[in-house]
């Protein structure tokens, strides 16, 4: 039974390694602006991969940006130009993406690091840009994107910025986690039943294993289904794995 042991110690360790927890999305802005300044870029944006299942159902959603109200189309134009390439890229690679703008002087360069960056098609957008892919796991994946008239990056700067991008995507995910944990959380018993059901046990087997009656097991699974805002136990199992309640 994998559900119970040591969960508390693990989460305590986790907190120790992640000291500076942020309290809202606005805390991310100064850090993104600092990165933007470091590389002399004009704008930043964070895109996350949304939707699950078949590749055709995935899409990029802009979560944060500083294009301002005057430039509502900027976020969409990047997705239109490069969305598919970016989604395909993050499925197989961690290498940063770069692209050149329409005008010949709108370029993005990384002279000493060409081997470790990939180019997207040139002359699709007015500005040049760089996108750092961040793949956390089953959730929270996406890109931190910077755009500018001219970009010239060293390997040192790329590594630094990509590292910070990873931290930002983790912080963004942990914010989501706290928002959803405000919703009623699952009890130990409910989690135990979900775990066993996900391992392929039928209610009778779960009942025997936990020393409960079949009706009680079904009641636990039912209440877990409601708490997880699901319509049946299968959806509840899928959600509880994605949310990390069971493994």
């Amino acid at each position, binding site marked *: 039974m994998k559900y119970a042991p040591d969960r508390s110690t693990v989460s305590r360790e986790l907190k120790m390694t992640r000291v500076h927890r942020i309290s809202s999305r606005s805390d991310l802005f100064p850090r993104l602006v600092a990165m933007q300044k470091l590389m002399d870029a004009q704008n930043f944006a964070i895109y996350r991969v949304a939707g699950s299942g078949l590749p055709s159902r995935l899409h990029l959603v802009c979560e944060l940006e500083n294009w301002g109200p005057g430039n509502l189309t900027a976020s969409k134009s990047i997705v239109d130009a490069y969305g598919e390439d970016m989604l395909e890229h993050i499925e197989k690679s961690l290498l940063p993406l770069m692209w050149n703008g329409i005008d010949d002087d709108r370029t993005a360069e990384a002279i000493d690091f060409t*081997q470790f960056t990939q180019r997207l098609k040139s002359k699709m957008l007015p500005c040049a840009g760089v996108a750092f892919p961040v793949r956390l796991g089953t959730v929270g994946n996406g890109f931190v994107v910077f755009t500018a008239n001219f970009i010239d990056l060293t390997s040192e700067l790329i590594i630094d910025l990509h590292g910070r991008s990873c931290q930002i995507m983790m912080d963004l995910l942990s914010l989501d986690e706290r928002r959803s944990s405000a919703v009623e959380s699952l009890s130990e018993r409910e989690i135990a039943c979900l775990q066993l059901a996900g391992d392929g046990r039928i209610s009778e087997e779960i009942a025997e294993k936990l020393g409960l009656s079949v009706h009680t097991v079904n009641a636990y699974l039912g209440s877990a289904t409601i708490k997880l805002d699901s319509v049946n136990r299968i959806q509840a199992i899928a959600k509880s*794995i994605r949310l990390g309640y069971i493994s």
Partner: protein
Amino acid sequence: MDMHMLHATRRDSEAVIPTIAARTMTRDQLILRLTDVAGSPLIHSGLRALTDYLGASHYMLARCDLLQESGLDFVMSSDWPFDLVRRLASDLVSTYVRTTEFEKCLMLFQPSFSVLPDDVTLPEGSSRQYCSLTFNVGRTRLSLMLLYRDGFILSPERLREVGLLTGYFASFGHCVEGKGERSFELTDRELECLFWIAEGKTSDEIAMILGISRNTINNYITSVMRKTATKTRSEAIAFAVRNNLV
């Protein structure tokens, strides 16, 4: 990989930590060495360079998705003593299943230190602690594990760089294929059914959505359960979610 294994065994008999001549390697030198070997199907020379840059002694790059299967297929490249890898395999699995996917997502590139079991023979002068950090290349989660001399302190900055560069390095294909192929043993239709079941739809509803009969849907699901060796619908969905198929 077999070659690496032999390599590791040979090293084991010497059981000495290689002298770290390149300890003062600069980042530029590292990048040059990596650029030279990038794209080559043998990743050990790149990993060696990264390990030297860090000042560590032995590296192991492992695929977390294969940890729970029997055998040592999870080792992608390693110069750890072979017996140590074999002894550690079961411990790695139990540590791995103890954290949830969510916690793993928040541990990207975060170095953590663990202690090796007392009954293993270490290379001479090696610390009983080892350092590991995980990252993802596409759908595959990888773990980089490092041994180092007793008393040596790994630089956190360099650890972060090395983690990222290992990820770049592993992005050059070759290494993380295989799992992808395995997931595509399922047909598009089967994946589509799985997706809708995970969304809480019943067979009848899916039949309506896809415009095919309920029996066909049930056949797809039976076939999924056969291919994934799962006993119930719930387990099949759990399998699909765990393996990022839906």
